């Protein structure tokens, strides 16, 4: 026992690497600074950042409860498809999604047309409520999916027990579901809070004016326009500290679930009838409309331009797919190592390190890496490897969050059996860890792949000639006024992102069921 304190486990090693990557890139930027000061506007940006992130996280997590519960206990045609499609909003590139939201909620959209029929005034989507709406659009599905995992993790034996005892739904909720929610919600809230903290483009596009400034915008401004590296590093430090505090708080609030293991029997428990059924139907229908309306708008807009797409789109697709798949595999491996490591250790260091990238400013990371590699190698020649590395790092927290509860559960349920059988590491990985974690791993890898498809922030500094990824290609089309083709390329981007997500997710389920 004592000797292991001096050895570094792979999870601890990775934690150090990630912390070094993120803090190191910020340090590289800071090393270039010749002064450190925050502007008064930065404090206002901090306040707005926290306000919009807090509201968005609260609304997303709370709305997810009825939706996830309804999805958990109802069986209906296309339920599986609906659950898979739930990931779609989250994996949409921000600009594409905002355009979809505008089509539905903006001027001339169905909502305002409907209001007009009712003789009500038009509602503007721009403002704090618009920012929250967009953030909820992105994060409600994520929260729902995470909660659904939580519900599914309650062994069906427990529900059967409750039902055999004739417990009414409210009592079942109190004894089975509420403890799960208490265990899951702080983590979910924290993840969404962290995601929204860095949502630079959403706040900027829908915020309606400069009062909707976020820290990330301030970082962008100081790096790109003012070249005030000191301020950028300082702002990055503020963002890190916020992230660290939130992550630690969430870790403190997260309670052990202690349900014990079921035997993995699949069983559908009869769901309550009458008004509860109606509530569930409404929750599912409303969520589906809210989430798929804007998506449908993206499809409708994209189809007309498909025929006129330039040839250059295919190499860009290929490049993006390679980047996405490699990033996803890298992130999955890292998350698996770190989640199983964090489940073994009592300390919070690994957890903190795995969550750090969420608060990392992609811009600071990009600039820091640029400064780091430049003395050794031409930045444009490592554009794709750097993109892979950064995407893998930035998507790690999502995967980690998904895996951690299940890794803990696995350890609680089968840690002793595994140890008493003396299984070597590779057997444990292949026959115990991977099969038990295949579902969240596949889902998480799918998310990571799709998120990597949509990302373009970091590559900008590194881009060489002709090496455009698909999002950059879309950007080029818009820059050349080719908006219809851009809409079509966006549709391809969405379709490919979703196909990747689907493939990974299916693979996970297949492996878990095998």
């Amino acid at each position, binding site marked *: 026992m004592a000797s292991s304190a001096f050895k570094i486990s792979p999870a601890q090693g990775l934690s150090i690497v990630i912390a070094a990557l993120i803090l190191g890139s910020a340090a590289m930027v800071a090393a270039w600074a010749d002064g450190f000061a925050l502007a008064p506007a930065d404090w206002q940006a901090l306040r707005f950042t926290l306000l919009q992130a807090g509201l968005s996280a609260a609304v997303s997590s709370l709305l997810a409860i009825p939706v996830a519960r309804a999805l958990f206990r109802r069986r209906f045609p296309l339920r599986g498809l609906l659950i898979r499609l739930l990931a779609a909003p989250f994996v949409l590139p921000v600009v594409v999604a905002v355009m979809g939201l505008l089509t539905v909620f903006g001027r001339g959209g169905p909502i305002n047309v409907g209001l007009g029929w009712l003789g009500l005034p038009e509602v503007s989507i721009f403002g704090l409520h618009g920012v929250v709406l967009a953030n909820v659009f992105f994060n409600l599905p994520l929260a729902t999916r995470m909660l659904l995992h939580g519900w599914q993790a309650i062994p069906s034996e427990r529900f059967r027990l409750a039902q055999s005892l004739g417990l009414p739904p409210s009592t079942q909720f109190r004894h089975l579901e509420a403890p799960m929610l208490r265990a899951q919600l702080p983590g979910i809230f924290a993840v969404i809070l962290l995601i929204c903290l860095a949502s630079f483009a959403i706040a900027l596009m829908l915020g309606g004016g400069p009062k909707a400034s976020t820290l990330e915008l301030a970082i962008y401004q100081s790096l790109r326009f003012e070249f005030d590296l000191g301020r950028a590093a300082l702002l990055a430090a503020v963002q890190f500290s916020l992230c660290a505090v939130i992550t630690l708080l969430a870790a403190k609030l997260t309670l052990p679930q202690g349900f*014990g293991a079921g035997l993995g029997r699949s069983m559908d428990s009869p769901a309550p009838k009458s008004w509860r059924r109606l509530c569930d139907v409404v929750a599912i229908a409303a969520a589906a409309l809210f989430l798929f309306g804007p998506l449908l708008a993206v499809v409708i807009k994209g189809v007309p331009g498909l025929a006129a797409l330039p040839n250059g789109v295919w190499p860009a697709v290929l490049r993006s797919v390679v980047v996405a798949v490699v990033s996803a595999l890298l992130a999955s491996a890292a998350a698996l190592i770190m989640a199983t490591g964090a489940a073994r250790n009592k300390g919070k260091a690994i957890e903190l390190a795995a969550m750090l990238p969420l608060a990392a400013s992609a811009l600071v990371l990009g600039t820091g890496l640029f400064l780091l590699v430049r003395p050794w190698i031409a930045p444009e020649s490592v554009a794709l490897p750097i993109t892979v590395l950064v995407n893998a790092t930035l998507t790690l927290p999502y995967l980690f969050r998904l895996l951690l509860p299940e890794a803990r559960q696995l350890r609680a349920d089968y840690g002793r059996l595994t140890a008493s*059988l003396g299984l070597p590491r590779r057997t444990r990985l292949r026959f115990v860890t991977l099969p038990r974690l295949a579902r969240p791993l596949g889902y998480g890898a799918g998310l990571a792949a799709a998120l990597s498809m949509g990302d373009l922030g970091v590559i900008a500094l590194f881009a060489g000639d002709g090496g455009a990824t698909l999002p950059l290609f879309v950007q080029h089309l818009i820059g050349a006024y080719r908006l219809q083709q851009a809409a079509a390329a966006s549709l391809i981007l969405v379709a490919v992102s979703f196909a990747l997500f689907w493939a990974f997710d299916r693979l996970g389920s297949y492996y878990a069921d095998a």
Partner: protein
Amino acid sequence: MLTLERLVLSQDDFLLTADWSVAAGEKVALIGPSGAGKSTLLMALAGFLPPAQGRILWHGADLAGVAPGDRPLTILFQDQNLFPHLSLAQNLGLGLSPTLRLTPDQAAQIDATLAQVGLAGMGGRKPGQLSGGQQGRAALARALLRARPLLLLDEPFAALGPALKAEMLDLVDEVAQATGAAVLMVTHDPSDAKRFADKTLLVADGVAHPPVPTVDLFANPPQALRDYLG
């Protein structure tokens, strides 16, 4: 021979001492009120709880620092003795080859062992498809395959009916005969002890008393046992 040498176990404000030995091939029942530390003692033997003081010796060698999987024992927990996502054959296979790379001989051995415990032809099933008794048999089958000289049972059959439990105890007896293993079995049922164990030890009031012949113990029960039996 298993020797507990002035062993002290402590967990939060719980304390348990033990100082005795169990000879090879002996069958010992651990009896005592719940919460007295019967399971805790087994966990310490299995390597999940390091001793606060004293030593656990196997043939005179200290087991401190020996990983649970490397100890000369097989333990059956109260539940979770089988991985639910693996087939019975795979669950058993883990007892033969921790890498699950099985030779045809080993596969045949697994089939034979399954047949031996009354699960012939069920190697492809998952634990979820089995009854509680069948699960117990499968776990015992793996113990048979591992053939470690010490078998620890932490009430794995507590949930079974009397007839089924009796059957399982007979099976444990067979396994112990076949492997020559000493058995330490936690139970709260005196009839289990009487039926199965050569010796019984009482765990009560922070002490795991040395094992004494079962017949003698129940013929002349100490106060703590009388309290427990009521």
